[in-house]
């Protein structure tokens, strides 16, 4: 029988959820400190003044406080879109957390978290979806495990059921990520991850 509030081990609908990747910095941080905070935690960051038109790929966690138009593919890693981040892109990642504005589809092999400050127009496909009260969302949320598996592959289900913690991110520079397209910046450099 259908059970109200049933979460089936997921964190879907947790209004006060503070999870979605312990590796992320505090979501309430001022955006001016967020990139530095991300860097100090071994997360690559795209600063507020950075605008990227094109595809972005890589193998490290990434925080985006700037603008990205294109596609973001970090299938084995976490992506956080900071409160100043503006994304017009489809995002493929192990986990996606959104505090800023997204127009595009979000694919999370493990989970997608929409924070209260977020505005998302697009579709979400993930085995676990959490959304905070106050967030704006228009689109579809695919929560059918079979449909998620079809969209994301077996990795989605495997990673969702695995509780193994991820090793700490290595202090790698942003160069480890690949940008196909134009990257422009005004006054703020891309913050290389630092250990």
């Amino acid at each position, binding site marked *: 029988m259908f059970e109200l*509030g049933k979460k089936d081990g997921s964190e879907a609908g947790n209004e006060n959820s503070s999870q979605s990747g312990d590796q992320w910095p505090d979501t309430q941080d001022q955006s001016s400190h967020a990139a530095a905070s991300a860097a100090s935690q071994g997360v690559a960051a795209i600063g507020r003044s950075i605008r990227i038109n094109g595809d972005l790929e890589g193998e490290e966690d990434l925080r985006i406080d700037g603008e990205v138009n294109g596609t973001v593919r970090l299938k084995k890693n976490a992506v956080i879109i900071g409160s100043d981040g503006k994304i017009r892109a489809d995002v493929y990642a192990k986990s996606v957390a959104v505090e800023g504005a997204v127009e595009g589809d979000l694919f999370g092999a493990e989970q997608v978290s929409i924070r209260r400050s977020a505005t998302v127009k697009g579709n979400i496909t993930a085995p676990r979806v959490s959304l905070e009260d106050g967030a704006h969302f228009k689109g579809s949320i695919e929560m059918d495990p079979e449909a998620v598996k079809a969209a994301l592959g077996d990795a989605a289900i495997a990673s969702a059921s695995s509780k193994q913690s991820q090793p700490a991110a290595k202090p790698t520079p942003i160069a480890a990520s690949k940008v196909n397209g134009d990257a422009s910046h005004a006054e703020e450099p891309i913050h290389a991850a630092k250990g």
Partner: protein
Amino acid sequence: MIGSLARSFSREEPAAPEPFNAPLFRSLIERIPEDERWVVLDLGAVCPRVISLFGGHRCRLDIADVGLGLAALERPLESPDLRKAAEALLPELHAEAADLVLCWDTLNYLNRDALTALMARIHDRCRPGTLVHALICYSDSQMPVEPGHYVPQDDGSLVNATDCNEQRDAPRYSPEDLTLCMQGYSIDRAMLLSNGMQEFLFRL
């Protein structure tokens, strides 16, 4: 002493909105099969409890949040433009039809032309047998100026979490009005609720 304590308690946060029973909504969610895929179209704003409600089941949840764009339907428009405006309020069209549509109290905020246009667009996204749940202002002549934010509770009741005190006239659509405006839908069941709203379950 007791009096001052009572006064201090009375100055605390305003009381949380009372849940109300919505038997048709409860029966609706109770009948969602665990092992079948369902597509749910929610006309309201995204609500963590609704995601929680359908999470863990084989569901796709389409969030329309039409409240943000209702003003676009209030202007007098020619039919083609009204159709376009109604279509723009809905999420992108998927190949898969909706099995369930949650209107909450949105229909009260549409004039007859807009109601007809929006429900026709929704009809295009449904299949024969799709169920449509709606709450219609019935007893009260006034209603809040903005659509409610309905939060399902664990026991199947609903809470309207909107703190909007400003009121406007309610259209008080009768079942006949709704049947006229909603071509292709038939009333499956209707119940008058304790809060003065009439709960409807339509079927395509």
